[in-house]
């Protein structure tokens, strides 16, 4: 189950963060998302390790922490998507698929002429679309 998704701008500022848990651990998820930026930095800035995969947007598992696993995705405009899940076994293909849909939703959201680039995403339709994607991800794994 995905517990949290986040969009992080290229200045490492949060643009969108939504948790999907009942428990009140938003703060913890904030911390997790924030910390995972270090891993993304490391992967992006360490050319030796990531040279053959520079064009790959999907960053894979960033790190497992406590009960969660953190997955990352980096767009061309250096906007980062982060997904936190509690699932033990996540297939890479599923994660990729999720991020692709998420990216599409993000692109649609920032294409809104009333959206100011670099500002937080306040679109409600984006939020609902993201929750649909998140739900379908959970469904995809159970089926």
């Amino acid at each position, binding site marked *: 189950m995905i517990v949290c998704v986040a969009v992080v*701008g290229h*200045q*490492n*500022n*949060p*643009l*969108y*963060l*939504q*948790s999907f848990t009942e428990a*009140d*651990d*938003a*703060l*913890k998820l*904030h*911390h997790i998302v*924030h*910390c995972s*930026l*270090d*891993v993304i*930095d*490391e*992967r992006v800035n360490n050319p*030796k*390790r*990531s*040279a*053959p*995969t520079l064009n790959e947007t*999907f*960053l*894979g*598992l*960033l*790190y*497992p*922490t*406590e*009960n969660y696993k953190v*997955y990352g995705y980096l767009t061309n405009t250096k906007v980062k998507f982060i997904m936190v899940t509690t699932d*033990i076994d996540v*297939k*890479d293909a599923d994660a990729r698929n999720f991020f692709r849909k998420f990216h599409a939703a993000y692109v649609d959201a920032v294409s809104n002429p009333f959206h*100011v680039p*670099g*500002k*937080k*995403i*306040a679109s409600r339709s984006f939020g609902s679309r993201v929750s649909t994607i998140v739900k379908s991800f959970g469904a995809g794994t159970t089926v």
Partner: protein
Amino acid sequence: MEDYPEELRTPPLALVSIVGCPELHPSISAALSSQQPPMNTLALPDFAKASILARSGKTRDPLAPPQAPAGILKKDWLLKHRTRVPAAVAALFRANHVSGDPAQWLQACSDLENLKSAIQGKSTKLVVVLVQSTAGDELSEDVMVALRKRAEIDSKYLVVLVEHDETEWNKSLDKLKNVFAELCSTFYKEEGRRIKARIEKRNFASVELSIRYCFKVAVYAEFRRDWPEALKFYEEGVRVLREMIATSTRLPPTQRLVEIKAVAEQFHFKISTLLLHAGKVVEAITWFRKHTRSYERVVGIPEVAFLHWEWFSRQFLVFGELLETTSASVPDSLSPRFGTADNALTEWEFQPSYYYQLAATYLREKRYAIECSTVNLTTEVNGIPESVMPSVYVGQYVRLFEQGDTVSVLPLSDMEYTSYALSEAERFQDSYEIIALFRKAYESFQSLGATRMASACSCGMAIEYYAAGDFSNAKQLFDGVAGLYRQEGWATLLWENLGYLRECSRKLNSPKDFVSYSLEMAALPLFSGSGEENRENNSKIGPAGSPTIFRREAILQEVINILEGKHSEGTDDAFNNAMEECTPLDIDQISPLRIVLTASVAFHEQSVKPGSPVLVSVSLLSHLPSPVVIDQLEVQFNQSDCNFVIHSAQEDSPLNSALPGQFVEAATSLTLFTNRWMRLTHEVKSEQSGKLECLSVKATINKHLVIYCQAESPASMEDFPLWKFEDQVETLSMKDHVLALSGQKLVQVEEPDAQVDLDLNSTGPALVGELFIVPVTILCKGHGIHSGELKINLVDARGGGLLMSPREAEESESHHVELLGVSTVSEDKESKEEVDNIKKIQYSFGVLSVPKLSVGDSWSCKLEIKWHRAKSVMLYVSLGYSLGSSEAALHRLNVHRSLQIDGKIPLTVSHQFLRPFRREPLLLSGIRSSNNDEKICSLALNESNMLVVNVRNCTEVPLRLHSMTIEPSDDGKQLCSVQQISGITSEHAVIAPNEEYKTIFSVRPQVISSNFNLGEISLNWSRDSSLGEGQESRVIMKQRLPEVNIEEPLLVVSMECPPYAILGIPFTFYVKIHNSTSLLQEIKYSLVDSQNFVFSGAHNHAAFVLPKSDHIISHKLVPLGSGSQQLPKITVTSVRYSAALTPSTSAASVFVYPSEPKFILEKSYSASDECPCHSFRVPLSSPPPPPPPRKMEMVAASKQKVKKYIHLFYCSECEELAKKIAASSDAIELQSINWRSFDDGFPNLFINKAHEIRGQHVAFLASFSSPAVIFEQISVIFALPKLFIASFTLVLPFFPTGSFERSRGGPTSVVIYDIHALQERFYFGDDVLPCFETGIPLLLQRLRQLPDPDNVTIAFPDDGAWKRFHKQLQHFPMIVCNKVREGDKRIVRIKEGNPEGRHVVIVDDLVQSGGTLRECQKVLAAHGASKVSAYVTHAVFPKQSYERFLTSNSAGPGDQFAYFWITDSCPHTVKAIAQQPPFEVLSLAGSIADALQI
């Protein structure tokens, strides 16, 4: 990891035991432990201690059924096997003890027996060691055998040690070591096999035993360093153990779980260690993952959850420590792609810090669990069980129960155990453990560059400090973390952080921090995702609460309450007291509190005059969630006079007891609304010049809170770091958009206006050359002048700055405009001297000090500027002064004035050459005018030429011309006379603007020269104005005349006609053509009819003008119309030069009066006498000026011949002719040449008086009659021209091919008589002018002396002769004969004419044999001629052929010539036939003499 027992942490080592000979033990055990693999030694000093080796426990009946074990692993089993169960035992005996004394032997035997009994029942091996002191001590074979038998060992297990020999000792020790190694290996293998067999047989009842056996097998494998097998059995054990969680029922559930986990921990530790030691990092991590995952959920009942978390945390900690201590790093073979399918691991999992951090997190979990447990448990169970201690089994606890002396061990119930564990856990300070773990992780992450991870750890640390009550440490850490969150805009994280910080500062009694943190929290942007839920009971939420708008408002309200003195809950009095003396908050541009209050200040102007008001807008913005009322607002500037205060009008507090000099203003309301700019505009007046900058805005809220907010310029305002990502509407700080984008918080206050007038007066344009004066006046209106300084600067008005062109800059004098000086106009001398001292003048720059002036005074000076070229110049004058002497350097005021002054050339001078009236010379340059520079003017030599100089005033002021002269150049004075004909009188030459003034000069050049320099026109002028009455500033201006070309005219055409004509009265119009060359000039002239005149004479005609002579053409004209009439236009053409001369139309006109005019001549003459030099002032538009007075200057009319003095040389043959020539003219002097020859026949010539003929005209009379004399004559001809003679003329009376010629000076000319075939012209070179003369005039003279001159008829023997001579003999009847040559015979016929009865004279150019003449004579005589005579110019008569003509030789009168005239061109013929009839010689001497004069 340090918690683990030693035996678990280190790899097991084989154990051997040595008994006896204690003095050798240290060296043996050292040798064994240094072996590879090392062995531990259990050293027993004597055999009495051997009982230790015996099995300690009771012997178990092997046949009894195995009872169910009470636990999985016994705690001390491993220790026992590592320290007390040796694999082999060595009994040491000294050799001398064994071999010698029987008693000792017996003792040894009994010792050996004891030992054997001790190890009986075990597979421990026995070794006997004999110690020899030296190698030489032979041991008897039988002793050895006996000993072996006693010990029941193989012979190879009997080892001899040699004590005192180094090499032998080492050798024997090596042998011992090998024996031990072999025995150990066998021992552990056997033991392992034994246990393994049990596992395979599965003849045990419980799972516990299975695990135990696995453990034992693995340990034995480890003993013999069989790592794979050890790993295999450990893993097997773990597998079985995991199964046991669900199945085992042996213990109460809580304790069971604890035991299983403890065992699992041991297994896990062993496996991890083995893997990491083998360098298999990836496997180790994967294994660890599996381990944690399988136990993660095995929490147990909630009451003991803390035990689980503690255990779980320990797993991470231990694994982290293992990872840190291992040397293995991430293998390179690992795929670089972390976190994906092909590599499930991530980077951090290789870093110990990751595990430390998680360990700390789980430890914190444990603490939470404890907190929960204590709440639940302590109330229920009272009393903690006493004397609980760990049991013999791993992970089990028992209770000691004492009853009297007996101590029995009782198992615990779960309840008891829980309360025991809880009490244990509470004793333990988790906080410091957590902090230590976080710190480790923090440092590690920091070194990896993972700042966010590190700050998360730091945050964790801080929270622990906070929980532990160490607020100052916590605050410090939180502060460090907050920076990162602020920077990246993680508002929610910052919120939590600030919440802690706020509480910390509250606890630390730091109200300022408290307020600032509270305000920052209140102003934080909300993260939109955070919901409305507000569960206060959740312990994980920090003191900040959940980040909601209500919470923010509450925090703000709390701050306001505190400020207002309303004590809120949760604060103590001390804090409130500290609140009372609140220190002001400073907000600058980097302060996080910028979001609380931002002040943007902009002046409406960029610069302002001192004392005049300027508007300044102050805008305040706050992000606080609810409106804030500001009591008082003070805006502070760097000039404190400008500060002003605005206070809220609603507030009726007596606060506004403002300081004097401060502007206090009351505004209706000073309320800051959320996210909305509060804009105030105020007027400020500054008296001080310089920069006026707004420093800060001081806002007082609720009396106690004072915020100093640094002012920012709207132009350079930055975004708010946190709010910049929020989706709020952005507003501009100023209403005016321009101001909002470019407004500045500072304004430049200008200097005060100078109240001094600086006047520059200039009277029109400056004139080049004069000293132009610009008066400068300083008038003090409102200021007095102290230490004033006047700076003068001249700059080219067209830009460029310099007043000279770069090339001319090298010559420093040639500034086009110069500042020559400054003169002050002052009454007293003293001040003038003072001024002079200070003034500094350069070419274009001057500095001048101005004396002290008080208000109302004026001072002036004059600038003297001189222009060298016409140039426009900007004159900048600036006056700098200070108001008072005291603050001289402080305030200097400046007044600037500038003036553009044009420099103009005052007079333009043009000139024009005019020839004498009605006289036109033909000049060579006029003919060839087309080729080279046409600009150059040509003047005729020895003629008077008029030079008219026009001076035009191009300025706008009248100018006075004082003099105008032509200053000839040095050599020009002698060569060319210049006279002024008309010009300047003493006072009249004032030229009005745009008027012209003319002066006429006469120029008479006296030498032929091309590019003759006439000199310069020099003008002396001044302004004709009242300016500068005192001294007249005359200016001399010079202009160079162009060079002229002076040549000798070839022909001069002069026209003569009366000054006027009268209608109907004829007058004569002469045109005189003067040939000034020494050549005969053929001219043609033509007259064109004029409608107002009738004239007589030819329209077209030709004439020859003799050298140096005139030809006059005269026409009689009758005027038919009155007025100024054009004379018939005459055009004279020189044939030789093919150039035409046409007099100008002005010259060819005459005024015709209708009747005789009457002039009062006397008056007019007297008038002209009075004013002989008339000056014309002609307006520009007037008709062309009338010609100068008609003075008909005649070229010398008389035909006065200037004789040329000639030195005549002659050849000896021509001596007679020469003498005759000399006699015929007195201008000819004979000179002689000595004609001698050397012996070999070469000529030896000497020219007498050679030096006298220098510069003289020289002629040579030559005779080429015979080839013998030609050579010597040619020598003379070549020699004579080289004696510096003026000219050379060769007279050659008879030239065989040209008959008669001469050459003359200048261009060499050859004169040839009579044999003028046309081709002879081209016989001579180009540098010789051939001149053909004739002897006919001599004949004509002679014929006139004949008795019958009227009866003479001229006959020409052939057509050639007719062509040659007929023109000169036109008035005689002529007969032309025709001569046909037939072989040697000549047949002559009469072509035309009638000789009958006439005296016929045959004329021919030369005679040779005379055959033609004779034939001709015969024909003429036959046709009835009465007499026949003959004339030939050249009588050659070779071979005395003349004899045929002698009268004495003739056949009869019919065969005779009456006369035979010849000339003396052939001297030897003349000599031979002189005065023999019929020959008569006509001498050419006179003719030659004349020819020489050409």
